[in-house]
């Protein structure tokens, strides 16, 4: 690989400074603060704190409910990512093939990404509510079968679907852009060689999509870990009996609602490490299969 070297320049540094300052003030400083709090017991109204070393981490990690929260977060992240990306890919393929009405459709499908997570949760309340939602029709046939307040798997399914619905739009834009950047000549050549749409998809488009695919995988997984809060809060509130108590929701519940700043800070650090580890694994093992053109 070719490497470029630049000489240090004060002008470049000065031009970079405002951006770096913003990054520092809004990212590194709060992270450092959280890291500090994670090793103390912080009084919410100020007034000092006590250094407790690794106690906060020990307490969190020895809690069996915390591990079930980690488990459900991983399930949620994987399930929403798979669901959202496969839906996005299928929809992008349709649009790319310019099926009837694709122009209206292309605009409409971008909208969900602009909807705030709590609003998504609320909208899906109308779908999943056992008493008044669309799913309540199931209950008229089999009374009591659909009940988010009773069955953990149903609650998890509900937040996965709501979460995936929100993510589809983002992945869709990238998939579509990537599909459209595939040179037409390639597709036409393949078509002339007798490859039908499905074959062209398998042998031509998907391999050329791998960089986009990889990028979206990393972004989607990270997003599902950190951006699921609004959906959980409005749709299930972490219930029934903690079944949808995702890590990021637990951080909110303990830190903001319960004023346990230190415990929440420790959980944030753990979440950050987990997301970093997952991203590392993806770069280490999955990126190998990606072909950049």
């Amino acid at each position, binding site marked *: 690989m070719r490497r470029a070297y630049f000489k240090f320049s004060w002008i470049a540094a000065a031009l970079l400074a405002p951006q770096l300052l913003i990054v520092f003030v809004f990212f590194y400083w709060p992270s450092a603060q959280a890291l500090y709090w994670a090793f103390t017991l912080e009084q919410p109204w100020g007034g000092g704190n006590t250094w407790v070393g690794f106690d906060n981490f020990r*307490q969190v990690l020895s809690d069996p409910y915390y591990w079930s929260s980690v488990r459900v977060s991983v399930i949620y992240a994987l399930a929403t990512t798979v669901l959202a990306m496969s839906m996005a890919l299928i929809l992008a393929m349709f649009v790319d093939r310019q099926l009837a009405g694709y122009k209206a459709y292309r605009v409409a499908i971008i909208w969900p990404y602009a909807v705030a997570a709590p609003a998504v949760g609320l909208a899906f309340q109308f779908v999943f509510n056992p008493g008044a939602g669309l799913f309540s029709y199931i209950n008229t046939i089999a009374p009591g079968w659909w009940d988010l307040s009773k069955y953990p798997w149903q609650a998890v399914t509900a937040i996965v679907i709501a979460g995936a619905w929100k993510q589809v739009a983002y992945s869709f834009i990238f998939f579509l852009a990537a599909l459209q950047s595939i040179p037409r000549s390639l597709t036409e050549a393949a078509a002339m060689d007798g490859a039908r749409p499905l074959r062209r998809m398998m042998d031509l488009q998907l391999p050329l999509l791998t960089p986009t695919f990889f990028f979206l995988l990393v972004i989607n997984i990270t997003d599902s870990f950190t951006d699921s809060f609004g959906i959980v809060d409005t749709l299930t509130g972490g219930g029934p009996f903690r079944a949808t108590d995702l890590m990021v929701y637990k951080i909110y*519940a303990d830190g903001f609602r*319960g*004023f346990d700043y230190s415990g929440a800070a420790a959980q944030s650090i753990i979440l950050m490490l987990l997301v970093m580890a997952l991203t590392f694994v993806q770069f280490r093992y999955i990126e190998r299969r990606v072909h950049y053109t």
Partner: protein
Amino acid sequence: MTFKLSITAFALMAAATAAHAEKTKFEYWYGLTGDLGAVVAETCSRFNASQADYEAVCVGQDGYDKAVQNTIAAFRAGKHPSLLQSFDAGTADLMLSGEFYPVTKLMADIGVTVDWADYFPGIANYYSSKSGEFFSMPWNSSTPVYYFNKDHFAKAGITEAPITWEGLEQALVALKDSGQACGLAYAPSSWIDLEQFSMVHNVPVASNNNGYDGLDTELLFNTTLHVKHMENMQRWLADGVAMMRTQAAGKTARDSFVEGECSVFFSSIADHNTVHTLTPTFAWDVQIIPTYEGVERTNSVVGGASLWVLSGKTEAEYKGAAAYLAFLATKEEQQFLLENSGYIPVTKSTYDALLAEGFYAKEPYINRDIAMKSLTWTEPTDLTRGIRLGGMIQIRAEWLAEVEAAFAGQKTMKEALDTAVSRGNEQLARFAKTYAGKSFP
């Protein structure tokens, strides 16, 4: 340049002084939302119109918990309001931080006379220190009751709304026998099922007199009558005399009641006004929360919220805050709140005056003062002054999650409550460690 700047600065200063001469502004952040939030905003404009010295800038914070969260964040940045409306569960940290101006002291320092003895003991004890000094100003106060459908009761041949749990069970069985599919619309609530239940039965929620006497407190509710009560609720649900009615399960208890689907539900007296506005098509009434037979009933305690004066504000702002608090405490303003919500009077004199005027003999207020009966049943005992626990919000959440697990058949009720207690105790230990060496004033 410098000259221009100094002119601008001077102009700004002049403007500020002019504004200052007009009215002293102070901020008030409140948690009530919806119709009740509108009532708060209304009291602010009434206050601002009533005098020329101060201006209350009232900002709704979309919920009690958010009001406290936002105030903490603002406080740490030094931009907090003078007044905060806070709910009970949010105040243990505030009490220990000492970052507030006790209202008794504030009123004395400013020179506003308040007859503190006029407050109902069930309310006063909840919001005051051991020495009887009020931390915060009681305002929107409530206590739980149960609402019942009089038509359903008449059809089932129940002539009087029972005040014992045994009696209520008989009534629910009679309702079921009369063809009523849903008797009690049940939604587990730690405020009612645990906290107020323990108050009226004079049993402890936690050691150290429910946390008043120290921070080394442990929860005790897995050893009291509360266990039997929750087992009964479980049995009622299994027998079909009670039905789970929560938002997550599809419909809230209040909606089920108002629509006439269920005959009984438990809630705060604050809902009295709401139920009335939803205009049910049947006759309904309220009754005090029941006790078990053979137990001597004690008082229930106040719920709702109170107004805290925070530290670090100017003398002028404190004067404004004091004026606003004094304004809220007047009979007219209490009555304004009562007429526009389901809350109850906080002072004896206001209550007596309202009784004398026949306020509670008119619709829609008839029988709403049954809450007063519950609140003043006895003088508060060491166990019925209230609850003072750190991490109360998490303790409530642990209780709810465990109780729900028991209702779903994942564990027995006793196991669930044992787990809730041991997890709650971890919260209390953390809290005690965070405030090592301190105690509730």
